[in-house]
């Protein structure tokens, strides 16, 4: 069955209010300004080289779940950017609503389709460009816009206030000292080997992850610190809402925290999109050719701790387990081998999903889609039944996913499709199964 975006229109307070303020003339003026100022050779090349072969269709989890050609990556471009270019930006407010719905909620910017395009077209780039236009037009889903607002006001994505961050760390330190009396969560330690940064849901909802990381780092005898200032949150939803200016401000705060602390590198918690923001996008918007401070994802960091013998496993986590490959650190950074080496070192009975590694299907939460909130929850769950099938086929009861958004997306799928699978971070398992010397 083939549908159109009009058939699946969803009401969202941000989108409705946004298009109510628009006229075709205002839309055209804004679009032309964005195209002129930011639409360079890359966009033109992609648009002009696409031969409409449709090989990208089977790369997309939305298409594979619905088997509806209108979900194919090329169809998403056809329904948005090609129309925008064809009409030189003179399109209706309702059309902009459709563009926003496609770009923000039906594409995870996972870049799987780029691997299947014989010409290497990065559809995620084009969808990001559509999002940028929608942002400039003020047509963004309510909840991701709220997240971008939080970034602008607090430099973190969850409205965590300056004191709440420090208070949470002090509280976690107290909790952990019941288990390891000499444990510290070092704050503002100049010259530490690394700054550990997390995403805002950790102090807000998943404080056990900070606890576990602190325990692992203390057990390994590492010289580390966290900043006590804004800049501690490495996430960046403004990158996904299309607000590049706030995206840059958030990255500036993050890197400047690390530079102020004179650390050798930044180690990031188990998050995928944050890595993309820091390693690939935000740094370059700020003019840096590469990141100004080396950035290490937890996968690499745990790999190093295990291989150097700084942490040792007292036992292996009982399998069978499977591995979910987060797009932004696998396709974006190539950590698939290290992820597997870590999982095999800490777990028994690893069962691979098929396809996997750089061909793995997205969790359908990333790219800011889960941050678009409740109105679009069903879209991402139904739009990823292929992932549910993939998980179910493994027959495992545990899935390891080293990314917060992946946990969010997979959790919903597991619940909806009754898969009975428990999700784990690498840190969960390492903390649970490692040797704990001196711990009470």
């Amino acid at each position: 069955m083939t549908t159109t975006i009009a058939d699946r229109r969803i009401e969202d307070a941000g989108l409705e209010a946004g298009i109510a303020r628009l006229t075709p003339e205002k839309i055209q003026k804004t679009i032309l300004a964005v195209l002129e100022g930011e639409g360079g050779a890359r966009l033109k090349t992609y648009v002009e080289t696409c031969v409409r072969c449709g090989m990208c269709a089977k790369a997309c989890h939305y298409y594979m779940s619905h088997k509806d050609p209108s979900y194919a990556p090329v169809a998403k471009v056809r329904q948005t950017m090609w129309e925008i270019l064809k009409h030189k930006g003179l399109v209706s407010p309702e059309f902009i609503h459709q563009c926003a719905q496609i770009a923000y909620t039906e594409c995870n910017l996972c870049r799987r389709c780029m691997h299947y395009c014989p010409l290497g077209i990065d559809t995620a780039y084009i969808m990001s460009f559509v999002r940028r236009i929608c942002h400039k037009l003020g047509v963004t889903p309510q909840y991701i816009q709220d997240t971008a607002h939080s970034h602008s006001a607090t430099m973190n994505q969850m409205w965590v206030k300056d004191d709440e961050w420090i208070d949470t760390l002090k509280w976690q330190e107290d909790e952990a000292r019941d288990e390891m009396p000499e444990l510290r969560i070092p704050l503002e330690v100049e010259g530490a080997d690394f700054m550990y940064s997390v995403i805002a849901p950790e102090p807000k909802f998943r404080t056990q992850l900070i606890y576990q990381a602190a325990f692992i780092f203390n057990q390994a005898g590492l010289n580390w610190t966290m900043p006590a200032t804004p800049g501690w949150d490495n996430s960046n939803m403004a990158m996904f809402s299309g607000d590049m200016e706030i995206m840059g401000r958030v990255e500036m705060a993050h890197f400047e925290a690390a530079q102020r602390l004179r650390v050798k590198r930044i180690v990031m918690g188990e998050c995928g999109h944050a890595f993309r923001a820091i390693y690939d996008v935000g740094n370059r918007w700020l003019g840096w050719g590469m990141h100004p401070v080396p950035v290490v994802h937890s996968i690499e960091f745990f790999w190093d701790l295990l291989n150097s013998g700084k942490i040792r496993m007292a036992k292996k986590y009982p399998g069978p387990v499977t591995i979910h490959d987060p797009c932004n650190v696998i396709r974006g950074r190539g950590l698939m081998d290290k992820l597997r080496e870590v999982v095999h070192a800490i777990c028994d009975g690893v069962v691979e999903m098929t396809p996997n590694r750089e061909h793995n299907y997205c969790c359908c939460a990333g790219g800011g889609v889960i941050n678009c909130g409740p109105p679009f929850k069903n879209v991402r769950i139904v739009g990823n039944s292929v992932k549910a099938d993939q998980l179910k086929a493994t027959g495992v009861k545990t899935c390891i996913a080293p990314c917060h958004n992946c946990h969010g997306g997979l959790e919903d799928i597991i619940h909806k499709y009754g898969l009975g699978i428990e999700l784990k971070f690498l840190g969960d398992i390492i903390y649970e199964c490692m040797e704990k010397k001196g711990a009470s």
Partner: protein
Amino acid sequence: MQADQAWDWEPGARTVLEDATACAAPHEWTEEPESSPDGERLAAVANLGDGRFTVCVNAEPWETDFEKAWYLRFSPDGRLSAVTMEDGMWTVSVDGESWEESFDFAWGTTFSADGGVIAACIQSDGRYGMVVDGAPWETLHDNANHFRIAADGAHTAAAVQVKSMGQADIETFQKGIFSVAVDGEPWDATFVNCFDPAIEVKTGRVAATIRRSLYDYSVAVDGKAWEAAYDCAWGPVFHPGNGQVLAPVRKKGLWGMAGDAGFVWNPAFVQCHHPQFSADGATLAAIVATSFGKFTVAVNAAPWSATFPVVTDLRVSPDGKTVAAQASTDNTAFRVLVNGSVWPGVYDMAYGPVICPTTGQVAIRVEKDGKKAFVLDGKAHPATFDRAYDPIFSPDGAKVLLRGISGKAYKRIVAPVSAFTG
């Protein structure tokens, strides 16, 4: 850090404390030590066991101990502050004496330039503001960020939320719920965002970067916004002579420097941030990228020729004759840049150049092969340390105070400039 003539400037090395981790009270551990500006004291938070903490100065504990103590900082005038908690309430303790009033949370202790005024950020009953020498702002706010104290300590400021907002209420947010509070009192005007307030010494005028909409960045001074709108902007600075406010701004993808009448540096840079004036205002320097990935320093809009992947820690001497910064590649291979020249040394880490206000000479703390050392005008002092603190020039500029821990011993060295020969 302004050196005092009364400090011991007799050239030579002296061990101030044989064991930098020592504390006369029974303790479980001591934390990262801080050195007093004159080098005569070394202070560290000590865990006394049973969840109690105190501060040890030259191994002698404060008389008081606390549920928590952290953020140990010496003020420029040599007073020692710590953020402390007792009975679940937080305050600032200075030289062992806690401020009378305590708060649901206190953090981020900060000082006036001479250290005469000590301020901190506070939260009481879910309301946010600052406390200055123990006296909290009369008006607190739903939230506050970007806390600042004026160089002379006469005023404090922060970006504050002045209107409440429901969960995910993006319409209210975009109407503008933020302002800047000066000594607690907010401007009449509200904006979508307020960032990086700057306070003019003596007049108390305050400037901040603002966002009037999601797309319209500008600068407001005492609540009055510039007419011009920019695509983005970083924090403003006051011209110390004529009070003009300038800020790095972005237009059509390029950055320049603007005042209320428009650009004073043409938007020719891929990046431009951290502007800084000399004391007379004749020199304005900023970190700039002349093209993608090529950073340097621009002085009065003219960029230096040497570019690097990263440039940080810009410093301008009071007379404007010396401008210094540090450069790095992948957070290593640190170089020191002075007036456009590049020192020959390459270091694993650098900690920000220090300019002698009298002579314009530049000293810096660096790290190489795991050891901390000091370099002056490109020449190293022979002493190395495991942990070190920033160098401080004597008032006449003839000597440099070096402070550091080698092994267990905490030492202060008064090094004549001529001792830097390496």
